[in-house]
């Protein structure tokens, strides 16, 4: 590329656009447009049910410990498919770039996307690039959509949590939200908090393979955190969930940062975590499966479905008190993903 910054012309559809695609985007996101650059990617007919999802990424800052807007945009969409128990087969990428963004910055973001896709075993099949005048977006916004295939007949859904189910999480909570928050606000902490951003498709595949129909519900506790996600499932499944505070895995730096800022890690966003509702007899096995996976080493059983008291989530605090858990209200950290 001749220019070291992105110009409006790079989104014009003309010569500069082709230069951007040929010199930067396509070589890095190699599957894109399947090389022949037609208007649509062509997929062969798939066996089984398909899942389809989309998400937009506007995180600020675009680079943070543990990831970037690029890796996040790939992981987020893969995880949305994985939570539907679908294995991703292809992703689209829409880039909206602010005029003046350094080409080197864009290159790093694209390389992060490529690395994230490769590690997850997912191909980027199609894409689009727009450039808008300075100040009309903040550096770069990314939309990704994904298609996944369900190679099983299981009914894994937020409606299916049952009384007795154990609730598992694959590691510490609140890392992504606090990593973004700390790097945005320049919080001086004893050690860096790294985002947990990670693709969860292979962990879900292992769980499906290991415990099958005993896996009843799956969801990733992103914005709103573990608390909001569990409340959603309690409402959908018309059950009561009880969490044990002393079982919740929280990293010490995250706990300290939350304490300083008056935040509750239960409400802070995660990008590499899943909550799994598992029949009690399979819970230990599921815990083993999680702990032997790269993204589940810190897995724990954090609570269970206790009754059919519709839509309630309660927390047994460390000192033995009980309190209600509601969805995140107000105070959402903006532009966390």
């Amino acid at each position, binding site marked *: 590329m001749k220019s070291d910054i992105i110009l409006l012309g790079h989104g014009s559809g003309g010569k500069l656009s082709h230069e951007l695609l040929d010199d930067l985007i396509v070589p890095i996101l190699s599957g894109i447009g399947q090389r022949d650059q037609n208007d649509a990617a062509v997929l062969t007919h798939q066996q089984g049910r398909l899942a389809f999802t989309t998400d937009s990424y506007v995180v600020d800052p675009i680079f943070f410990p543990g990831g970037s807007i690029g890796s996040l945009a790939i992981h987020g969409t893969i995880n949305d498919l994985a939570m539907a128990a679908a294995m991703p087969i292809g992703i689209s990428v829409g880039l909206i770039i602010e005029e003046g963004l350094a080409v080197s910055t864009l290159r790093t973001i694209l390389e992060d996307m490529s690395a994230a896709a490769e590690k997850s075993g997912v191909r980027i099949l199609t894409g689009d690039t727009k450039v808008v005048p300075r100040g009309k977006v903040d550096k770069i916004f990314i939309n990704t959509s994904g298609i996944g295939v369900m190679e099983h007949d299981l009914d894994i859904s937020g409606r299916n949590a049952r009384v007795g189910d154990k609730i598992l999480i694959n590691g510490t909570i609140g890392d992504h939200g606090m990593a973004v928050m700390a790097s945005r606000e320049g919080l001086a902490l004893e050690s860096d908090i790294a985002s947990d951003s990670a693709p969860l498709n292979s962990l879900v595949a292992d769980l499906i393979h290991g415990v099958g129909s005993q896996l009843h519900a799956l969801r990733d506790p992103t914005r709103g955190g573990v608390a909001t996600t569990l409340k959603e499932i309690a409402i959908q499944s018309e059950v009561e969930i009880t969490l044990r505070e002393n079982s919740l895995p929280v990293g010490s730096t995250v706990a300290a940062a939350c304490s300083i800022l008056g935040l509750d890690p239960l409400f802070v966003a995660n990008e590499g975590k899943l909550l799994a509702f598992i029949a009690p007899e399979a819970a230990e096995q599921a815990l083993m499966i999680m702990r032997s996976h790269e993204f589940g080493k810190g897995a724990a059983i954090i609570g269970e479905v206790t009754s059919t008291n519709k839509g309630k989530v309660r927390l047994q605090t*460390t*000192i033995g008190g009980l309190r209600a858990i509601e969805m995140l209200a107000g105070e959402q950290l903006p532009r966390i993903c």
Partner: protein
Amino acid sequence: MKHQDEYRDPELARLQLQAIGEAVAGFDRSMTLMEVCGTHTMAIYQHGIRSLLPEKIRLISGPGCPVCVTPVGYVDQAIALARLPDTIIATFGDMVRVPGSSTSLLDEQARGANVKIVYSPLDAVTLAENNPASNVVFLGVGFETTTPTIAGAILTAEKKKLQNFYVLCSHKTMPAPMAALAGDPELKVDGYLCPAHVSAIIGANAYQPLVDAFRVPCVITGFEPLDVLQGVLMLARQVVAGKAKVETQYRRVVKPEGNRKAQKLLSRVFESCDAQWRGIGNIPDSGLRLCEPYSRFDAGRALPVELEPTVEHDGCLCGEILKGKVQPVDCPLFRNTCTPEDPVGACMVSSEGTCAAEYKYGDWGMGAGG
């Protein structure tokens, strides 16, 4: 987390609760204990402490949330300042969502006002330094815990010879409102859980006149669950024995004389004044204003603005809630028209507000939240 887990030990909590139960066993009525600190309010909800205490002990929240006790007129003044050209409002986060008479700083921001959230008053000084063409107004809200840092910021601005840094002062002091409420026959406070960090500054001795005048027990209490339980136990024992004295549970931080250095800093920059408390009204000598040598930093004086007539929102019971006379669930607006997304009163806005805490945590089995 180190230095935290030891104050959340379940076995020690059980022993404390047992002792509390024994202390009130022969007591023939219920007792009302008031906490006067937003952080206590949050801790009590967050750890489900009410669900563990004997029924005889009623914990109520008083005027301890600085954002909540700030009168609507102050918010209106901040909004009017935000509308001035070339003006940046620097504030702690909670203030932006507090409704004024007709709008909030958040609404003004959406309409183009420059409102910046800062974590320290010194960040506001830096903002003024980096934006010499704008006036930076820091919203000075808070008790003795935050005011010394604001005094420090003003001294820094003076040292840097900044001509564009101002503070809109609404600083409040303890224990004046506690005396105002202690004399309220409708309320009948049996004892106060006194604020932890405010007391670290003003010292335990500051509560002695209150105890002498009203014979109301005071226990300065820390924020961790075991601190709160021990504070409740100490208060309950005083109430049952008919005693009234100042005791300090939070000894690891609070000294009888307080933090002299911080007190000196405060008295160098601020002087005592009467202050308006939302829900309570005017309380003599319960606020702080800039003293003469620093009055050029006073946004109220330096940047005159025209204010709209103050409108309190119909049906909002914030005032009564701040006095501990009604609970959030008694307010007809609570959870209906007043929610954290669309708050009517300040108690629903501040993360330390009683309504926000009730909304977020409820108290399992207390007829609310569950």
